[in-house]
C-alpha cells in the first residue's frame, strides 16, 4: 500500500471518529463536507495602545470534496464555513492566518487545512 493511500485511509478513520458536517459556501453556491475541526485558539494582536483577540478555527478535509458542480476548487478569501454546534449555527469566514487561506496537510495534496476566524 502506498503512503498516499495510507494517509487517505488514516484521514477517513479520523473523519469517522471526529468528523462533523460543515457547509462550505462561495457566494450563493455551497457544498456539504465532512470535516475534522483542527485547532481552535484565540489569537491576539496589539497596536498603538490597544489589543484585540479573535477566535481562530481550522477545518481539515479531503481536498477533492471541495467542489462546486463537480469542479474542484481551492479555498479563497470571501468563502465561508458554517457549522452547527448544539443547534446554533456558527459561520466563519475563510481568512488568512498570516500567509495563505489554507495549507496542504500531506505531501500528496489530498488533505487540506482551511483557516477561518469568527468575525
Amino acid at each position, binding site marked *: 500500500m502506498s503512503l498516499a493511500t495510507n494517509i487517505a485511509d488514516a484521514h477517513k478513520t479520523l473523519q469517522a471518529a471526529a468528523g462533523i458536517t460543515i457547509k462550505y459556501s462561495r457566494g450563493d453556491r455551497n457544498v456539504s463536507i465532512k470535516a475534522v475541526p483542527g485547532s481552535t485558539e484565540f489569537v491576539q494582536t496589539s*497596536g498603538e*495602545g*490597544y489589543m484585540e483577540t*479573535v477566535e481562530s478555527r481550522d477545518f481539515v478535509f479531503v481536498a477533492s470534496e471541495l467542489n462546486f458542480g463537480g469542479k474542484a476548487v481551492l479555498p*479563497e478569501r*470571501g468563502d465561508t464555513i458554517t457549522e452547527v454546534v448544539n443547534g446554533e449555527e456558527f459561520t466563519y469566514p475563510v481568512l488568512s492566518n498570516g500567509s495563505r487561506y489554507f495549507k496542504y496537510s500531506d505531501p500528496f495534496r489530498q488533505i487540506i487545512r482551511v483557516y477561518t476566524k469568527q468575525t
Partner: protein
Amino acid sequence: MPNATEVDVANAIAVHLNAQTLNMTFTAKLDYLPDFEREDLDSAEITVFPAGKQISFASRSDNQYLYNINIVIRIPVKAAKEPDLADEMYFSEQVIESLDRIQMSNTSFRGAETSQSYDLELLNERNEFLVAYSLTYFEIK
C-alpha cells in the same frame, strides 16, 4: 475627586463624537483598557483613551501641556474576495474632521495623525477596518 486633564479631554471627545451625525451609525466611548474581542464587533465603534502627555516651559510663569489622546475606529468588513473600504475611509475622515479646531475641556486641538490609513493585517486576517489616530491637544497654564 477631580479628573486628570487628559481624562477630561478624552471624555469630552467621546461626548462630542457621539453628538455627530456621520455616514455610519457608531458609538464612541472612553476605555482605559482597550482590549477588544473581534467577535463582538458588529457595527462601527470608536474607542478613546489617554495615551500620554508632555510638559515644557512656555514662559517664565507658564508651562505648555500637550495631551496625546488615541482614538481607534473599528468597523466590521463584509467577507469578500476584494474588500471595498470606501465608506469606512470616508467615515474615518469625517470623524477626524469633526474634531478639527474644536476645544475639548479647555484644551485646544493641535492636530491628528496616523501612520496608516487602515491596518492591513487586520483587514486581511479579520475582515476588520481599523485605524488608530493620535490626537494632540494643548493648553498653556
